[in-house]
């Protein structure tokens, strides 16, 4: 391969010693590596320094995405690659990135890369988790992150300057997301507690998203029973966020109005609503479903919503 690649890596770290070695090993071909460290007290800083990274110490922040923009300008290369500390690349990444940058020409500012997500040893294959494309490779200065957790960054010159890789036969980001479901729940709770809730409060929207999460993430053909667990947890996460948003606005909206559910509004007639109710009841009564608490909750909420509509 010819000459050093014109690329900077930016990684944000916070007590990342467990996952960092793999990231550092698989990015050693990148000439400039910048570790923005949020007051780690494990071996993170020593690992980064030993690997030749430039370490920028900063104060801890509950949301990495919020502070990313402040440090993107540290990159001195024409292209930047942003990775999280629990991510890594494959052994052919250098060749793939060189080819991508070479092909980008003048028309492309940023490249969306598919991501493999793992829970423990399990690669999550359902469409909700894969290809999970991430805007991480871009011309320096052409992408900005938004406040909050896991929100898509913005390509400043417009999305038509974004190229997207087509999986599976292409560069991927490999992401060891969670060791197990305990870590999953712990992290989702932290994200929910530290997220920004600055939009208009609409609990209906949170409930609709809860349904959407169930529908999107339950895919036993791809991920077996784990998909049920994750669908329920992600659905529940939406409800939790709705309640936290309500708390953030000073409990100033009548929360029980949420029981006039969006599914009622979307349903054209009472028959369709009843059919949905029957479906939820069938799921609730099915012996094959063991973990149905959120569904039961939603079913009851739906019933309450119907009662409210009938009495009004």
């Amino acid at each position, binding site marked *: 391969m010819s000459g050093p690649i014109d690329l900077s890596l930016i990684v944000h770290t916070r007590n990342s010693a467990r996952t960092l070695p793999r990231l550092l090993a698989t990015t050693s071909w990148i000439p400039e590596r910048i570790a923005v460290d949020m007051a780690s007290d494990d071996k993170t800083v020593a690992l980064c320094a030993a690997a030749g990274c430039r370490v920028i110490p900063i104060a801890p922040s509950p949301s990495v995405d919020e502070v990313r923009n402040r440090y993107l300008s540290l990159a001195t290369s024409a292209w930047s690659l942003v990775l999280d500390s629990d991510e890594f690349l494959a052994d052919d990444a250098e060749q793939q990135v060189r080819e991508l940058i070479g092909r980008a020409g003048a028309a492309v500012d940023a490249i969306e890369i598919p991501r493999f997500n793992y829970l423990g040893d399990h690669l999550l294959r359902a469409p909700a988790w894969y290809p999970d494309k991430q805007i991480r490779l871009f011309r320096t200065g052409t992408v900005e992150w938004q406040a909050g957790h896991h929100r898509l960054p913005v390509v400043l010159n417009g999305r038509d300057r974004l190229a997207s890789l087509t999986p599976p*036969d292409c560069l991927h980001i490999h992401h060891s997301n969670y060791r197990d479901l305990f870590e999953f729940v712990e992290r989702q709770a932290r994200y929910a507690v530290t997220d920004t809730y600055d939009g208009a409060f609409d609990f209906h929207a949170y409930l609709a998203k809860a349904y959407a999460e169930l529908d999107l993430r339950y895919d036993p053909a791809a991920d077996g029973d784990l998909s049920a667990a994750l669908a329920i947890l992600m659905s529940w996460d939406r409800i939790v966020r709705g309640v936290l948003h309500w708390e953030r606005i000073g409990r100033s909206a009548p929360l029980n109005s949420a029981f006039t559910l969006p599914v009622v509004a979307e349903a054209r007639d009472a028959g369709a609503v009843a059919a949905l109710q029957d479906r939820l009841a069938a799921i609730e009564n099915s012996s094959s479903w063991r973990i149905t608490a959120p569904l039961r909750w939603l079913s009851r909420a739906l019933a309450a919503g119907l009662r409210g509509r009938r009495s009004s």
Partner: protein
Amino acid sequence: MELTVVIPSFGLTALLRACLFHLEAGLQAADISRYAIAVVDNGSVVPYRSDQFPCDNLALVRLDKRTSFSRACNVGASSSPSRRYLFLNNDVLLQKDALRDMLQLFARPNVAVCGARLVYPDDLIQHCGVRFDAGPRGCYHEYHRRPSSSVSRAVRDFQAVTGAVFLVDGDLFGSLGGFDEAFPFGYEDVDFCLRARQIGAAVTCSQAVDSIHFSGTSNQDPSRQDASRAVFFRRWANRFSIDGTISE
């Protein structure tokens, strides 16, 4: 390192596990203690995990984008430099004594490449050496699809052997620049053997035992070798010896 085993592989996780199980028995029988196994995950849709393969000294080399067999082999070899390399297909179940016999053949003067005698699951010969005839097929597998019991076990030298099980001297492999990556799939092994013979290395094949080669499990496209074949004939037409024809 005494030996690095390189296994380029795409999917077929369970078959790869069986391949590794047989390989470990072969390594033990050959009394090799200082070895490495480099499994090159050549763009498997679901990436391999090391815990799927409970083997000693195994390292996964992950390629996100599927590449040629030749390049995958070269990447695997460069990941663990060694005195000798054994290139092994993921659909080969090595007979326990195969590797030991191959290493013994390496004691013969000039031998720098050694193949293995391979059979299909029905005991018909898949490979026991590569010959060349004057017809359009060029190189072909000697005694292909004959019952193994009817094929001599006398050791003989060849112009080439298959890369499905391919033991090669590390210095020779390095000095020839590994397999030529101009070959997308197939013929890189024959090309390497011919280049090795050009500098005086002998190519032979173990005949003592039969290992199983399912063959074509990762890629069953009948035209899969066409592009490589074209490269091969552009380079080698009229430049190899004619061994003659053995009809199947």
